[in-house]
């Protein structure tokens, strides 16, 4: 089985192919640098993403505040993370950098200020 990725480490955008045989990596090709190889293997075996969303805030000037995860999250965990987040309701005021929640050790950090309504 051959898996193909367009590398995003730099603007070159190498098309990297990983050939798998019996659940093991047989060959990685197409990368012009070692970082690309490392990236593609991680993309195949355990891809991770910073997750961003907005959460509702009560008593805030704007009804939602934007948040991000403190670290990249395994993509297989993203649906359960999103489900957990969808049940949250925050309270103003919130400052940028505030840890507003935590999910399996991953901090959820506010990226926008939520000012309290006067």
């Amino acid at each position, binding site marked *: 089985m051959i898996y193909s990725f*367009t590398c*995003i480490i730099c603007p*070159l955008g190498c098309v990297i192919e990983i050939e798998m045989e019996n659940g093991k990596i047989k060959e990685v090709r197409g990368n012009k640098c070692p970082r690309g190889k490392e990236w593609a293997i991680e993309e195949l075996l355990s891809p991770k993403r910073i997750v961003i*969303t907005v959460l509702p805030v009560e008593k805030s000037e704007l009804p939602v505040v*934007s948040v991000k995860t403190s670290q990249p999250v395994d993509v297989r965990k993203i649906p359960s993370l999103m489900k957990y987040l969808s049940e949250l309701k925050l309270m103003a005021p919130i400052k940028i950098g505030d840890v507003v929640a935590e999910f399996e050790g991953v901090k959820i950090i506010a*990226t*926008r*200020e939520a000012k309290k309504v006067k």
Partner: protein
Amino acid sequence: MEPLPQIPMMSYDVVVIGGGPAGMAAAVKAKELGLNVLLLDENDYLGGILPQCIHPGFGLHYYREELTGPEFASRLAKRLVELGVEYKTGTRVLEIRNCSDLEKVVIFTSPRGAYQVWAKAVIYATGARERHAFEIGIVGDRVSGIYTAGESQTLMDIYGIMPGKEIVIVGSGDVGLIMARRFALEEAKVKAVIELMPYPGGLARNVMILRDFDIPLYLSHKVVELRGKGRVERVKVVRVDENLNEIPRSEFWIEADTLIISAGLLPSVKKLEQIGVEIDPATGGPVVNDRLETSVPGIFVAGNSLLINDLVDYVAEQGELAAEGAKEFIEKGGIESRKWVKVEKGENVRLLVPHYLSGDRDVYLYLRVARPMEDIELRIPEIGKRMKFLVVKPSEMLRIRLKAEEIEGEKLTVRVVKV
């Protein structure tokens, strides 16, 4: 229109129009350079589009760390406030009047009434507007459920409102792809991204979103029609050939309740056109010199109203450059006229800024190629400059440093050629 006599006229060195990254960076720099600045913005909050760009990827050059849009905006806004830059939100500029080189009047409304202020120089940083459905030839029923990508971003990420449940996105530019991810994460079904060109329009890291969420991308396709009763119900898609002509009998329908248009941005230059600023049809923004001064002396421009940028870092850099230009303009009573070196587009160059170089300072040339190419050389034959690139794409702006001493002669032609 006569001046409104009942209002006392305040006087500033520089009025900056637009409080996004270009305008804030310009206002901060102008203040740091000792100028008396007023910044005007039409939103209720500073930051322009950044507060709704909640994804990471901002600031790697400008702040040397990766930030989300709101974080980038708040850093600039914090600096602006620390420096005591005067700013007004909720304003709308009606007119710029160019009375003489060092006497300009900016007329604007705010929730507190109409104002006019004197300015010696104006920095125009109003960003861009999005192309809408009617500009890309989509016909059909007059229904709700049609949004630009930016509008849907404002709804979701500023106001927490979902625009729809079953989404078709027109255009695979960055904003469209980023919104595809937002919709998918919030459990809307993104049924398709439709791209006219044979290659995706966005950065590779954003194209990856499609794989993450199993979203089908139709290259060389276009949406031509939409149907529904009151609300979008289905959209008609056709395939196009290499000349972008519709292929007969290739059409099919996709059921969706929402159509998102991500068909590119156009520099917003209306108030500049009114005072006769020369516009470059390739960028849609003004023709500028290496201080980012337009063809009207003392009117400077930066950010997406100059040309559409990919990176906020370059937008902020342009804001600072315009502020430096304004400072020089005010001190010397004008940017010294000299023999400008004209920069011309050669083969495979779609657009290029700035258009005129003085040769007395180092500059960045910002340019986009006409099509994706591999193993190319960027050449400026007049000065024997050559730079190699393994890959260039229209979606990724090139930024080329030219040293002052390299800039000479009548003109420089920038060519992109296969080696």
